[in-house]
Each structure stands twice: as structure tokens, then as C-alpha cells.
């Protein structure tokens, strides 16, 4: 007897472990720091995020902030990644620490997936409402179906206050104002508790007498039929009739209480409006490009032609959200994340103003530890050793013009 008891106790323990494991099996991902582990070519040749602005560094609970900017969908999109025909403008935060109060591409609300065109540039905005206090890394993010998440730069934002103060009031089309944070909660708990109690009552009826041992003995002896009495059947039918009646009645009363309900909304949004970019007046040809592994520097030989009517200088090279600036031409005043900003990372052999109509070949070097830190140097291990990025030229009036480049890259190991 003791042995059996021990055996069952052991089994119960195993069962408990199985349960705990099973229950712990799934928790929605809370991490948003995949940016460095993503293949370098994915970050360089898919979506380029620029002109980004995080409206606040510190946000109290219930206050809002925006992440705004532009993204360029690269024309030289890699073969190995699915085209952005079904894409979703997401936001890279660790779970619902903010709620996404709104998100727009080219002024159109995008709660659902959209189609993006290669070679186009779009304006976007994400409105966030602070919910859970803490320091959070907030990334721009685009999910591409069969292509995976394409994560933009992240900036630390602090939420202050207390989550218990958070409210999310919504007015429905039926005229009610509710708090989506806890709406319907009592109803959910009530019905789940109710049916659970109902189930316990049903099992309790059968468990009021010894269950397993006598029943097994009777069944082994072939006396199955003696185990279910007429009374048992009546009680069972009672439970079933009650179940059907409760379901029918509550269905009716629910419909009476909520006469207007609509189905879930889904479907792809098309026709996103890209930005009308001014005609490019600067033409760039990449003559050669080398990545020097020991120097953590990329050297490019560019032939630049100015077809515009104002002289220009090269102020910035940006790739995979890392910005290399020539401080003599352009300084960042937008509060761009430090780790992604090489303020003096760009050196140009001759960066004197390039007059209209002129062509010049220049040696450009983009060097910074970010090549290593952000694992962009891993580019040399990619199956298609190419690099891509955006060059920004600044004219006399201070206007910036964006030019994309896309060329093979030769690594240099010495």
C-alpha cells in the first residue's frame, strides 16, 4: 500500500512538472533587440529609415509621444528576401509598454498590412501612449511577409509614473465610452467561473461515492450495467438540459444587450502614397568599394556629377541606420541615438563645394566602431557581397538631397 502511495505521489509530482513546463511553454516575446543579429545585407539593402525623430525622451504614463520619419524602400531589394507586397508598419518595443494609438504611412492610417513599392520613399508616423514605467528601447520596424522583421534604429525612452493609472478610453459607434484596458473583464471572469463551477458540480456528483476501485472491479467482473442507475441518467440529463438552456438564454440576452456587433476587420490596404521626391540633381557612380577589416572602415571611390544649379557637398553616408557624418558639412541636431551616429565618421578626399555642371572623383571613407558593434562587417560573409546605403548632399541653402548607392564590395584583410 505504502509503495503504491509513494508511486502515485511520484507520478503526481511528474505530472505537476509536466504541467508547469507546459504552462511555461509559451509566453509572447518580450524582446525587441534583434537588430544586431539580423544579416547585414538585410539591414543595408531593404528599408532605409531616415530623418527619424522620437518626440520625447521621458514620457509620463497616459501621455503620448511620436516616432516620425521617412523610409526608403530600396530598389535593389535582395533576391533572397520576399518583396514588401504584404508589409506591416510595426513598432519595436518589448510588448505593450506603450499602446500604439495610431500609425500612418503617407497620412493613411495603417492598422493593417500594406503594399509597398520598391524604389519609393514614404513618410510614416507612429503615435504611442505610455503605459508601463521603465526604460524602453523604441525602434521603428517594418514586418515583411516571408521576409521577416526589418528593424530600424532604436532609442531609449523612459516612461515614468504608475501603470495602475493607465486608462484607455474609447467611444464606440453605439455611443458608449469604455476603458479598453479593463472593459468586459468582470463578464469574462464571471462566465469562466460560472462554467467552471458547473463542471465541478457535474464531476462532484460522480465523485460523491468511491470512483475508481469499485468501478474497475465491477467492470472487470463484467457487471458494467450495474454502475449507472436510472437516477444517474436523470441527473445527467438534468445537467445537459441546464447547459443547453443556459447557453440559449445567455445567447438571447447577450444579443438583446448588444444588438449591434460587427465582425473582425481584416484585409490588405493598398495604394500607400509615397513622397513626391524632387528630381535628383546629383548623380553618383561607385567606381570601387573596399571594406578594410583591420581598420573598420569602408573606402569608396565615387564619381559625382552635379546637374543642379547650386553647388553641393557630401555631408552624410547612412547604411543600416548607422550615420557617418562630415561635421564640416552636416551636424545632427535631432537627438539621433549616439551609438548609431558617427559624428566625424566620414572623410572625403576633396569636399569643397562641387559647382553646378562639375564632375569630381572623390575618395570617401566611412569609419567607426559601429561597423563592428552593429556587426555590419559580417557583410563580407554574405552570399552576395554587396553593400548599399544612402548619400546625403547638402546644397548652399542647406537643403539635403538623398542619393542611393548599391555596388559590389571587396573585403581587404591586410
Amino acid at each position: 500500500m505504502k509503495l503504491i502511495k509513494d508511486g502515485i505521489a511520484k507520478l503526481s509530482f511528474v505530472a505537476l512538472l509536466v504541467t508547469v513546463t507546459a504552462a511555461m511553454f509559451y509566453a509572447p516575446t518580450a524582446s525587441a533587440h534583434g537588430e544586431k543579429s539580423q544579416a547585414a545585407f538585410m539591414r543595408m539593402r531593404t528599408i532605409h529609415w531616415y530623418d527619424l525623430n522620437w518626440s520625447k525622451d521621458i514620457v509620463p504614463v497616459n501621455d503620448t509621444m511620436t516616432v516620425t520619419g521617412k523610409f526608403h524602400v530600396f530598389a535593389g531589394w535582395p533576391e533572397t528576401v520576399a518583396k514588401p507586397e504584404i508589409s506591416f508598419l510595426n513598432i519595436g518595443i518589448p510588448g505593450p509598454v506603450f499602446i500604439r494609438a495610431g500609425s500612418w504611412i503617407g497620412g493613411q492610417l495603417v492598422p493593417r498590412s500594406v503594399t509597398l513599392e520598391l524604389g519609393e520613399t514614404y513618410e510614416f508616423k507612429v503615435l504611442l501612449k505610455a503605459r508601463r514605467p521603465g526604460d524602453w528601447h523604441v525602434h521603428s520596424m517594418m514586418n515583411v511577409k516571408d521576409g521577416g522583421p526589418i528593424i530600424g534604429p532604436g532609442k531609449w525612452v523612459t516612461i515614468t509614473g504608475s501603470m495602475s493609472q493607465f486608462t484607455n478610453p474609447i467611444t464606440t459607434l453605439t455611443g458608449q465610452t469604455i476603458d479598453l484596458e479593463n472593459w468586459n473583464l468582470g463578464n469574462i471572469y464571471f462566465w469562466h467561473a460560472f462554467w467552471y463551477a458547473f463542471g465541478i458540480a457535474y464531476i462532484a456528483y460522480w465523485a460523491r461515492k468511491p470512483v475508481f476501485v469499485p468501478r474497475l472491479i465491477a467492470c472487470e467482473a463484467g457487471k458494467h450495467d450495474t454502475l449507472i442507475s436510472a437516477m444517474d441518467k436523470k441527473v445527467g440529463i438534468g445537467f445537459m438540459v441546464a447547459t443547453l438552456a443556459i447557453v440559449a438564454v445567455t445567447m438571447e440576452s447577450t444579443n438583446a444587450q448588444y444588438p449591434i456587433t460587427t465582425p473582425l476587420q481584416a484585409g490588405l490596404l493598398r495604394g500607400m502614397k509615397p513622397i513626391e521626391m524632387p528630381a535628383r540633381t546629383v548623380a553618383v557612380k561607385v567606381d570601387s568599394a573596399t571594406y578594410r577589416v583591420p581598420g573598420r572602415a569602408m573606402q569608396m571611390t565615387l564619381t559625382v556629377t552635379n546637374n543642379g544649379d547650386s553647388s553641393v557637398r557630401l555631408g552624410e553616408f547612412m547604411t543600416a541606420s548607422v550615420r557617418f557624418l562630415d561635421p564640416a558639412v552636416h551636424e545632427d541636431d535631432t537627438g539621433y541615438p549616439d551609438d548609431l551616429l558617427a559624428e566625424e565618421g566620414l572623410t572625403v578626399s576633396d569636399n569643397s563645394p562641387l559647382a553646378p555642371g562639375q564632375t569630381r572623383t572623390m575618395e570617401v571613407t566611412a569609419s567607426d566602431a559601429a561597423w563592428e558593434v552593429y556587426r555590419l562587417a559580417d557583410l563580407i560573409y554574405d552570399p552576395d557581397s554587396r553593400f548599399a546605403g544612402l548619400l546625403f548632399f547638402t546644397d548652399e541653402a542647406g537643403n539635403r538631397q538623398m542619393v542611393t548607392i548599391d555596388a559590389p564590395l571587396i573585403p581587404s584583410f591586410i
Partner: protein
Amino acid sequence: MSASQSAVRSRAEAVKVSRTFDWLIMFTLFFVILGGYHVHFMLVAGDWDFWSDWKDRRLWVTVLPIMGITFPAAVQAVLWWRYRIPFGATISVMGLLFGEWVNRYFNFWGWTYFPINFVFPSQLIPGAIVLDVVLLVSGSMQLTAVIGGLGFGLLFYPGNWPVMAPLHLPVEYNGMMMTLADLSGYHYVRTGMPEYIRMVEKGTLRTFGKDVAPVSAFFSGFVSIIVYFLWHFFGRWFGSTAFTKGS
């Protein structure tokens, strides 16, 4: 009476020991079913059960009863044919729901802070009780599969409607119409789950106009019948005792 014949000395003692067995077995059974059923359900019904913005009139109504009737059918097969115990389906579903609630409360809410009104589990108990009572009254596996299985599928949507209806109120949000459930899905950011993964309102049942839920429920009921048979035999096989010959 020799000691080798019985470990107990009186009828009262036998009843007492038998009761101890009952509680130990019930406890073990509950958690073993919970473990297996829960993992199974998360793998096959996962997102449709996790998020209120997946609980539509087509796929949720169809998928959940079909995937839900599996363990109840198998446990019924063991408990009814070996013990004549008519609560196999109910105890299975209650085990599943217990596990789901632990998961949703501690993981989804406690760990990741998704509101419970967005991540509560679906209700399966009404269908399970009907499944058990049909077996109790008919004593027939075929009738339980056909009537009980159909009932399990049909009762799913109305059994859940009282908690779902308030989430289907329409809202105008920045110029678009959505339900409150859609809005929860939009507001409470799932970084790892882009919107296009959501499989809702897809299917070919368009000819029935807006009354798609009953059609989906019937379809689900029919498939549940087949799945019931299949899992019933799994249960029979699992619950059989085979003796091997000693040398």
C-alpha cells in the same frame, strides 16, 4: 483471511483506502491530461485561442472544436469503457482551461502585461458536458460521436458569445471602422506578430451572407464527429492492458 489476500481488514477500511486512491488518481489524471492537452492545444489552435482579435466567425469557430474534441474523446474512451465513469470530457476540458488560465494570467498578463480581456481562453465546458451526458445516456460510442460531436461543435460559438459580444462593438478610429477586439490587437503591440499573420474571416463560405457563424459551427461539428472517432480509438488503444507471456 491470510495477509496475502487483502491489505485491508474491514469494509470501512476498504472504502477509506479506495477514497485515497480516488483523490490521488483524480489529481494525477487532472494534471496529466492538462499537460498533454495544453501543449496539443497551444500547438494546433494557438493564436486562435490566445488573442481576441483572432476569434472570428469562421476559422476560430471551425478550428477550436475540432482540435478541442481530441483529448475529451480519448479520455472518455478510457474512463467509460474501463470504469463506466461519465465525466471524461468534462475533466479534460477543465484541465485544459485551468492550464490556459494559469498561462494567460501569469505569462500573458503577469509577465508581458497584455490585458486579460485581450488574451482570455475560449470556453469549452458546455460542449464537454453534453458530450459526457450523451455517452452516459446512450452508452454508445457512435451516438456520442455523432450527437455529442455535433453538439460540441454547435455549442462552441453560443457558449462563448456572452464574453465575446462586448468585444465586437464597432468603433470609428481615425477614419476606419474596427471592433474593440481589432482595436485591442492594434493597441497592445505584439512585436513578434505582424498583422498579416492573423488568419481571420478567410474562407469560401460567402454565399451565406452575414450568417457565417452557424454555417462554420455546423461544419466544425461534422469534422468533430470524425475527429471524435479517431481519438476515441487512440484512447481505447492507450487504455488497454496487454499482458505478455512470461517464460
